[in-house]
């Protein structure tokens, strides 16, 4: 799973959000490491809608601006499951990496 897709699913797992809220939340949560362009975000949302991992949650007025109502998105059970599987995969990769790097350190390969 692409990192930005994973981040979108994580953001939505905390509640419904509209597009730019997602950009802001992901940027803040990752300390600016993942800073999505709005086009990249909506291309991903489009794919997530097609896959059924995310669904539209209607339009609501935006609290922080006086502009038009914003379209909100929510994660589906399928999307939640996909995110859980990705967490599981990352955990396994993390454990394997730590064990490999630990072994190497023991042999003096990495300090």
């Amino acid at each position: 799973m692409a990192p930005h897709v994973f981040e979108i699913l994580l953001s939505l797992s905390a509640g419904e959000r509209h597009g730019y809220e997602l950009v802001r939340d992901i940027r803040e949560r990752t300390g600016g490491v993942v800073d999505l362009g709005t086009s990249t975000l909506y291309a991903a949302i489009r794919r997530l809608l097609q896959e059924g991992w995310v669904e539209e949650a209607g339009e609501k007025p935006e609290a922080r601006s006086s502009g038009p109502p914003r379209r909100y998105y929510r994660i589906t059970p399928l999307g939640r499951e996909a995110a859980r599987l990705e967490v599981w995969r990352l955990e396994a990769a993390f454990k394997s990496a730590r064990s490999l790097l630990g072994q190497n350190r023991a042999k003096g390969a990495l300090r």
Partner: protein
Amino acid sequence: MREPPRFSVRLFAWIARRLLPEDFRRQLEAPLVDAFEDRMDETKGRADGAAVFLRELSSLIATAARERWREFGDAGRRASGEKFMLASVLSDLRIGARGLQRRQGFGIVGITALALGIGLNTALFGLADSVFLRPLPYPEADRLTVISMELAPAGTDGGFSASYLDLRDLGEENRSFDALALFLDWQSVNLAGSESPERVAVNFATANYFALLGFEPFLGRLFREESRLETPHPVAVLSHAAWQRSFGGAADVVGQRVLLNGWPFEVVGVLSPGTSDLGERFREKTGVYLPLSWARSLAQLDLESRRSARYVYGLARLRPSVSLAEARRDAGEISARLEKSYPDTKKSPLN
């Protein structure tokens, strides 16, 4: 009320309308422009407004290019009505074209491939490599055919490995082939017992596989015939290159014991230099040949217990009087008979 859109927002919306595919625009243009406006609002009073605008613009252009390419691929798939990705078709065409360019005038079909649809469909699939690129270095290559399984619908998705039991029945019942060998090209294993342990790719094969491809031993012998899989003898034949690499070309290699993933095998022979295994242009070169019966222990592939265990390919030589079309009909009839006799096979196609 929000102020009328700024110039940057109008410009962004104008570019988005021109670049993004229609589907994307219909679904998401308005929220995209709103989100862009939110982002630009955030930069008010900051010095990085122009940088953010340029970043958004480059993201828009890259996204539009990706979406267009994807749309192009979808259209190609819809038009062809096949499951293959357009990219894969284009890649095949490129390979074919390059091959033809290199060998102008070469029109001999070196090898053909026959797809045997066990419980499914029957159709032909082509080995572009063999047909277009180089004549195959095998005797009577124009009568050799690879037998594989095809998943429905016919003609769209061939080239899958087939059931050992089905191929064995085909070998017994057909009227089209002089000989039918079975093989299973597998992944690499650890080869120990030589100068330095190394990874070698394995091909499990029946004894007649070598004869069909015209392989001769450089040292020792090749496999002896086995009628069934129940009497495995742990013997191995090394490719010439693997012998050179792992044993430094030692003449006394025949009779030596080697360990393959921990299983002991006796080296009974080394192949002549220059032998090229089937499909080697697409995968790692085969380093060691083992009797097909050893797929069970070494690869944990149980070939004989059920027909839905599909791991094996067939390699057959057509009888001189039989055309490929006739062989295909013959195989199709046998395939249909097997489907009738073993209807459950279809329910569990790849397990």
